[in-house]
């Protein structure tokens, strides 16, 4: 038997060899800059500060306190050990019934109790990707209002190979989605012979931090009904609404409208609302029975650990805790949002008016050397390398207009925010001096500054990094 090593490189699939994983986007470049030079208050005070990570660290202490008070929620404590065996063996893709019931309750509470959810429609999933496998064939298209969450390119486009069809939104009307824009995108896709299967959007919006109003939601539902295409609403930020107008979910709108409910699907998670991204709790809630059944089968590829289901079932069934958590989290987010945007405003930086999310959508158009994406990249590079701040450029969210940046503010403590603002003020000052000197080159006022940021050592590092070494202690959760 001859052993012929052909000398050829090992070939991988087209999916493996493609760039659709999206990690070459600038969204991740900033993270890489942070990973290479992460800020630390004492060990690396001149490092890059992470403001590109939409994490909700504000209410984590409330959860820590609950866990301390409820040792039986863990299957590793003396109080909870009796449930260990049955939990460890439980791999049913329906998910623990008490877990589904608890999630349904949380979803209802996050929507002000104005709508109820059927626990039997709750499916564990890795988010929108799983829905795409159910709803669309490779090459089909999904409309998506831009700017949109950068990782949708990967979630929809990588393995499911669905084409994203941007529905352009403009700052002229605060990036609201219009019927004209929807129709234009739809017709353009049809002309290109693309089979449009649905519309996907995030409400509240990432990166805008805004919620959809009644009129827009009705327009969307009417539109998809008319075209008989699916509507996927990613409501992952539902409980981060910190100010009026209150959150209006698609689940509420369809109670008031005639609608083919087989078209309506909601994506939820505990990663943002509860600040538990590590626990990998993604939920698909569909009004379509076939999709629920299928999704459930597909969830075999990404079930939530039964240990985690068990803990969360207990926590989320504690209705008094959940209500207190939701209201306190919203209060802290409001306070954080206000102090940050006020600080920006004081140095002349405006943000899109928002009422939700863990970030603000910052307008730096007047600081661009030229009103182009090259100009945006140039400015962003300065922000990363000189100000040492990782923010996310609008182009990575497919924003139609250059000059917008998403800045996250909930993944740090108050002191860090103060330092951030201080760095901004210093930078503005320096920039103003430069501006005076190069007046002829600049057509508009440059007002850009970023304070140095301090980093609370208890804060988690970038998700791209290894977790900092922590002493190994017995797991109590």
């Amino acid at each position, binding site marked *: 038997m001859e*052993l*012929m*090593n*052909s000398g*050829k490189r*090992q*070939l*991988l699939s087209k999916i*493996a060899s493609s760039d659709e*994983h999206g990690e070459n986007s600038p969204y991740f470049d900033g993270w890489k800059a942070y990973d290479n030079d992460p800020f630390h208050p004492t060990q690396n005070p001149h490092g890059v500060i992470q403001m590109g990570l939409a994490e909700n660290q504000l209410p*984590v202490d409330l*959860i*820590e306190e609950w866990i*301390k008070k409820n040792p039986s929620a863990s299957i590793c*404590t*003396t109080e909870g*050990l009796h449930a260990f*065996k049955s939990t*460890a*063996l439980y791999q049913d893709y329906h998910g623990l019934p008490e877990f589904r019931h608890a999630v349904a309750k949380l979803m209802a509470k996050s929507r002000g109790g104005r709508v109820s959810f059927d626990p039997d429609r709750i499916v564990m999933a*890795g*988010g929108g990707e799983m829905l795409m*496998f*159910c*709803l669309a*064939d490779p090459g*089909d298209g999904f409309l998506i209002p831009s700017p949109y969450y950068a990782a949708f390119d990967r*979630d929809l486009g990588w*393995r499911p190979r669905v084409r994203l069809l941007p529905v352009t939104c403009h700052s002229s009307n605060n990036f609201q989605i219009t019927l004209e824009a929807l129709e234009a995108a739809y017709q353009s896709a049809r002309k290109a012979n693309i089979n449009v299967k649905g519309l996907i959007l995030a409400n509240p919006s990432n990166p805008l931090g805004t919620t959809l109003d009644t009129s827009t939601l*009705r327009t969307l539902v*009417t539109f998809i*009904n008319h075209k008989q295409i*699916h509507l996927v609403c990613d409501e992952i930020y539902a409980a981060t609404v910190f100010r009026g107008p209150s959150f209006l979910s698609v689940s509420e709108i369809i109670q008031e409208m*005639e609608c083919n409910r087989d078209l309506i699907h909601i994506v939820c998670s505990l*990663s943002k609302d509860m600040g538990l991204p*590590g*626990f*990998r709790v993604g939920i698909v809630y569909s009004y*379509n029975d*076939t*999709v629920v059944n299928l999704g459930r*089968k*597909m969830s075999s*590829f*990404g*079930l*939530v*650990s039964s240990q*985690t289901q068990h*803990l969360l079932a207990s926590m989320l069934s504690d209705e008094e805790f959940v209500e207190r958590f939701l209201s306190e989290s919203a209060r802290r987010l409001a306070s954080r949002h206000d102090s940050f945007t006020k600080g920006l405003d004081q140095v002349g930086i405006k943000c899109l008016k928002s009422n939700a999310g863990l970030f603000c959508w910052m307008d730096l158009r007047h600081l661009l050397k030229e009103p182009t994406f090259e100009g945006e990249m140039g400015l962003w590079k300065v922000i990363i390398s000189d100000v040492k701040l990782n923010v996310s450029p609008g182009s990575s969210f497919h924003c139609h207009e250059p000059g917008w940046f998403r800045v996250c503010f909930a993944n740090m403590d108050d002191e860090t925010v103060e330092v951030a603002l201080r760095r901004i003020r210093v930078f503005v000052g320096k920039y103003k001096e430069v501006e005076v000197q190069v007046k002829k080159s600049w057509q508009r006022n440059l007002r850009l500054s970023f304070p140095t940021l301090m980093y609370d050592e208890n804060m988690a590092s970038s*998700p791209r990094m290894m*977790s900092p070494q*922590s*002493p*190994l*202690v*017995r*797991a*109590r*959760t």
Partner: protein
Amino acid sequence: MTIEIERPSVGLSKVAVSETHCEKSPYFAGWRAYDENPYDELCNPSGVIQMGLAENQVSLDLVEKYLQKPADNGSTTVGFRENALFQDYHGLQAFRKAMASFMEQIRGGRAKFDPDRVVITAGATAANELLTFILADPGDAMLIPTPYYPGFDRDLRWRTGANIVPVHCDSSNDFDITPEALEAAYREAESKNIKVRGMLITNPSNPLGITIKRSTLEDILDFVTRKNIHLVSDEIFSGSAFSSEDFVSVAEIVEARNYEDSERVHIVYSLSKDLGLPGFRVGTIYSYNDKVVTTARRMSSFTLISSQTQHLLALMLSDKSFTENYIKTNRQRLKKRYQKIIDGLKGVGIECLRGNAGLFCWMNLSSLLEKPTKEQELALWKLILHEVKINISPGSSCHCSEPGWFRVCFANMSEQTLEVALRRIHEFMDRRNNVKSFDVYSSDQLFSS
């Protein structure tokens, strides 16, 4: 504004309407019968005993005992915040180190595993699907020796669009995988214009319950190298081999060859079988190919292990006094359980393939078939399900080419339940033999023999 809706059927994807999720197979039908009438020692002693589920409950008490040990410090939430926020797809470093070390211990230190090559997934189900996405394009094929775990039909084919081409094995040589069978399968794929991208083996084998011989592994590695395709070795039952020496991992062969051509080799592992923790969804891919590691890691974003679970297992699996004792004791208990069922079956004239691993035995009931056909096998399976009230897995659901073989699981129940099952089988065989002998005296016609 109201809209008139005619309610046409709304299009779903081709994946959605296909039946490649395979839940119509008898493998799952038996589960349904069990779900409707499950055996319980006290509450339902005449219910269906589940012997179609390859779960390991024999050593869970050791894990419970480990968890009962006093904590190292008093705090219950130290590290919680950091843990709850940790979503890095690299996985907790401590967890990867602990998994690599555990995998080394299972192989008696005969192979080394680099923690940086460990990619985490929510179970081996996800790992096998993920690897298929990476190694094969839609329409391409993976070769799999028969009989094989029925779940592969879904895991490798459903959402990926890949095909499976079987490598036929039979009882004439104890289902060993021969070079001739490998070549024949490859030629079959070629004749259908199907591009073969890799081969998937399960070692120890499910459903056979045997480890693959070293010489066979060498042949397989030579074959995949010659054809320039990948080799995925699902070693999910590696810790369930009755003795450590019996199990040879492909990792050992790779090291013996000085890692030559190793970039085509990938190992799948999980804690669902060896540690009896299927609910925790702990799977890993170990690849010798850097690009596969990087790509798999990115793709694992869709199927990460809960950080809470990673943390617990990082502690447990780095406790060498626990793991050494667990591995040793688990092997002993499984061997004892296997012996019990083999002896029990032998007592009524039922032979099994000589096994040395896993949570099941491969039982030969071909002599009970009227005719050696798949239909007869399924008829017998239904009879056993309804009359004997045990759910076992027919070989045809595992794509076995010889009718009459059945997989019988023995580790997902107490010893008492196993005894009840054996008693029922005894009674069934007694009834059959009595009927047969009665009829020989009363008629010339032969009943099934």
